[in-house]
């Protein structure tokens, strides 16, 4: 067994194991952390296929940002495991149907590729220049409009998500940062001159 196939089997075992643990672990935080491990090993497998840009951006975007926010929410929520497990048998049949269709599609796609097409070969240009450069060049020249459109759609999705969840409370107290920064001595401090009180006079009165 070469080192490459050894590491492939190692990473895929970890990947499948952690993916299973995402589904089966009872604790939602453990599930989210297993998902992080799954992403990380998937990135390692992509790195072995010399897709270094995809691998690094998977870690940067999903592990570094998306899953952090995910964990954040999971930790803050008070999840009742027993209530989530209710109705398990009702959901089982639709779940099996959906995942069966999904599996069939994958099998058709992969076996079709294997039968009708030659296996993909990494072209010499990509290995020489590194695919970060190649991807960047293609994205910003040939596929520029598609790329920009995708960015705009994502932006619209962000604005929509915020607009849907934004609630304005009437009793909310807001500090205005510009007021705070423009505050100066004159607006906060007043020096008044008072006549000096005589201690003895006060005692007498």
């Amino acid at each position: 067994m070469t080192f490459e196939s050894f590491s492939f089997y190692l990473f895929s075992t970890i990947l499948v194991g952690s993916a299973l643990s995402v589904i089966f672990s009872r604790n939602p935080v453990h599930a989210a952390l297993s998902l992080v491990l799954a992403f990380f090993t998937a990135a390692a497998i992509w790195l072995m296929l010399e897709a270094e840009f995809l691998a690094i951006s998977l870690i940067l975007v999903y592990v570094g940002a998306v899953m952090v926010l995910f964990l954040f929410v999971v930790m803050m929520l008070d999840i009742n495991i027993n209530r989530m497990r209710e109705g398990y048998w009702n959901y089982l049949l639709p779940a099996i149907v959906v995942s069966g269709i999904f599996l069939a599609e994958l099998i058709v796609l992969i076996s079709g590729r294997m039968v009708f097409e030659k296996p993909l070969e990494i072209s010499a240009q990509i290995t020489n220049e590194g695919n970060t450069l190649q991807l960047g060049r293609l994205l910003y020249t040939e596929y520029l409009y598609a790329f920009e459109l995708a960015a705009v759609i994502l932006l619209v999705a962000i604005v929509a998500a915020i607009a849907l969840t934004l609630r304005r409370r009437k009793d909310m107290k807001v500090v205005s940062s510009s007021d705070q920064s423009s505050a100066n001595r004159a607006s906060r401090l007043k020096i008044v001159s008072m006549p000096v009180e005589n201690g003895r006079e006060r005692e007498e009165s």
Partner: protein
Amino acid sequence: MIVEFLSAYIGDSLAYFSWTLMKVLMILIPVTLCVAYLTLAERKVIGYIQLRLGPNRVGPKGLLQPFADVLKLLTKEIIIPSGANKFLFVVAPMLSLMPALAAWAVMPFADGWVLANIDAGLLYVLAITSMGVYGVIVAGWASNSKYALIGAMRSGAQIVAYEIAMGFALVCVLMMSGSLNLTTIVDTQRSDFGFLSWNLIPLFPMFVVYFISGVAETNRAPFDVAEGESEIVAGFHVEYSGTTFAVFFLAEYANMILIAALASLMFLGGWLSPIPGIPDGFAWLAGKIAFMLFFFLWFRATFPRYRYDQIMRLGWKVFIPVTIVWLVLIGILMRMEWWPW
């Protein structure tokens, strides 16, 4: 040369493996020593700023103080809270140390002195350092303590916010140099005019944004709300003691050195000498890193802690717009070729 010498005795692949291992150790041991002396430097610098002497009892002028601290921490008991998740509680410090050390793999120290000279070096650094937040979050959750959880939440939100500004600042750097390889980034800052061709000058606002974001990323004062000893005791590591605490400490200082090293490589010309005629070399890089590290200590002694909403405002509403404007500006300058150098 050394690989050839070794392969005569133990075979090619083993020789390559052991030579790489030696190179890894040649980076990690000095980094760890730097961390040890950075803690001493911090106490000394802050001491002098506050008109005190700082530690001066262990060894000559207190020079052995870090070793005394390490020994003390290593011999202390590790207390695991009864309601804690034991596995995650122990794994969390390792999760925070791993990225801080792994990022050094692509750091060039001088021309050709690099462990892994990969083309996507800058992306690798960004990806690896973005994982550091897990140590903090997992520690906060696994401790099963209110203060720890609040600290973890604060730190998570803060790191995610400042990572974006930091990323944009670095995008400006890679636009200037046209490469993600750290050695190339330093080489493109080379010219006959010394420090005038460093990225510092055209990208000065980005340098400021990058460094302040770096201070926020490492949870250092004035952005240390994750620890916030006056409000949430010690934040995410309140339940940690002994070696596990020492590992968090090590990770924080290793991250500081990393941020300082990246700032010197990307904005201050790395190992290039500031004055033409004086030879380049590792000494310049070391000096620049030390200079940047001094700022970390200076900030801590000078500024009071930011309020949490001010941190979020600075990250999202000030830094990100500033970086985007500068990004567009650099793009226009490059397109129009209005480039004085």
